[in-house]
């Protein structure tokens, strides 16, 4: 039990440190993390909402909700790439289960994402988002996404330690993922025969779920939960496996 307490302390301390550093130049740092999704919202609304006439009503809030979900994933996973590589002494000088370092980075991203969501909520309200009792489902969505991010992060942190250019691959993958999720277009544009595959993407489900809650006022479908939880579980297994496999060589790679 002493171990668990120590591990808990480590995660709290490291994520607090990580979080502080990300927003160290405090007001400005945090302001940028709000301006980024807002700027994207404006750009995407201009291009897809007006120029390409998507025909989606309330496009700005529709796209901003998806952007917040996507940003949590993309920032969370990208930061985790450097969790191990960026802290070699945690591996070579301290005895501690190294997955805790990845977990700490993820927790810092979680705090950031939660803060972003809260701070941008007034904007969503102004843009016409309806807040119903369904908003209580938001923490559930966030926790499910966190599990997904942690699973992916375990793979990424380990692979980026073994192959130092893995961040490049991930950057491209994220770009691909952005367009493989219904962020700027509606999923109904996907040809019917690919739709089954398309809806296996947990990010699609997460984005749909958050729009259901805040735009359409309906609870997410059971299949949404099933796919998200299933995918998170699978990715946690794979990530855990990869991490475990590569972990023993971390000390020599760093």
């Amino acid at each position, binding site marked *: 039990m*002493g*171990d668990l*307490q*120590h591990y808990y*302390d*480590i995660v*709290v*301390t*490291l994520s607090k*440190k990580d979080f*502080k*550093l990300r927003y*160290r130049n405090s007001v400005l740092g945090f302001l940028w993390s709000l301006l980024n999704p807002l700027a994207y919202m404006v750009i995407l609304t201009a291009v897809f909402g007006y120029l390409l006439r998507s025909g989606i009503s309330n496009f700005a809030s529709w796209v901003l909700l998806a952007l917040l979900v996507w940003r949590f994933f993309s920032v969370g996973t990208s930061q985790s790439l450097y969790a191990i590589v960026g*802290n070699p*002494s*945690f*591996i*070579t*000088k*301290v*005895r*501690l289960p190294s997955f805790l370092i990845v977990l700490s980075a993820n927790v810092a991203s979680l705090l950031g994402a939660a803060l972003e969501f809260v701070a941008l909520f007034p904007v969503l309200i102004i843009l016409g988002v309806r807040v119903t009792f369904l908003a209580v489902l938001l923490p559930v969505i966030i926790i499910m996404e966190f599990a997904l991010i942690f699973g992916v992060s375990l793979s990424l942190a380990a692979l980026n330690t*073994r*192959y*130092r*250019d*893995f961040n490049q*691959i991930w950057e491209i993958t994220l770009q691909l993922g952005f367009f493989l999720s219904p962020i700027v277009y509606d999923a109904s544009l996907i040809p019917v025969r690919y739709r089954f595959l398309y809806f296996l993407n947990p990010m699609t489900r997460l984005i749909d779920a958050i729009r259901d809650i805040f735009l359409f006022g309906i609870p997410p479908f059971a299949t949404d939960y099933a796919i998200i939880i299933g995918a998170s579980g699978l990715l946690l297994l794979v990530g855990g496996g990869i991490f475990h496999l590569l972990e*023993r060589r971390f*000390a*020599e*790679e760093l």
Partner: protein
Amino acid sequence: MAEYSIYLNGVLRRNCRLGSSNRGGHSVGGGTISVIEVNDLWKRFTIPHERKNTVLHSLAVFLSLRGERRFSFEEFWALREVSFVVHHRESLGIIGPNGSGKTTLLGIVAGILMPDKGEVKTHGTLAPLLGLGIGFHPELTVKENTEVYGVLMGISRKEMKIRTESILEFAGLTKFQDTKLMHLSSGMQVRLAFSIAIERNADIFLVDEALAVGDMEFQRKCLDRFQQLKQDGKSIVFVSHSLEMIKGFCEKTLYLLGGGIRAYGPSNESINKYLEDIKEGTLIPSQIVPT
């Protein structure tokens, strides 16, 4: 009592307590019971000639027809046949030239590195002080850094809250607790790190080169602190180049050369052997064994 063993196949089984919950916990009677037992330890490092640590490079090598190039590397025995025992209340010094395996040995005893062969048994809680200022960040304040490093060293957050004040006082940095670390001189930073590290409570301390820090007055304070720990019945393993310090502090000294034991016994004898070797100029770095 905590204990861990490392088996031949590299599978680590341990049942080791971190944290300072059972401080002074186990009742060891005399001075003959061992707290660290190291048996026939071997550690090999492989150094590839060409590091394939990018995906592109690995792909290129994989696709190229000259497959033989893929397996060129050097093998290097960082430790060979190392055995020793540290008894309760005893301190051990580890000396030797650079690259002789001192730090590797300490890493294995600490449970951070895995040996290729051999066994390490420890009895009691272990505090590895292998690097000073791990996790320090120049942009964070002295106080914030104190918490991070303390927790990494195995002190609980609860305890850190209580002890931060006395740590900063020991380091002489109370006035600067809200200053960013980068505004401190490097000497002061090491001083801070050391003050935190020795707050850790444990039965066995593994200390790597930590004493060569700070000014004379601070070194005096540190030595006093270790002396105190010793009187409290703690065991300390020192890796150091400061032979005077080792002589004054450790009953026994292990002299490593090229990954093997060159001398092991009373500190005086081991240190004299080392000084002889230096005089004769016979010191060689660890042996590289090409394969």
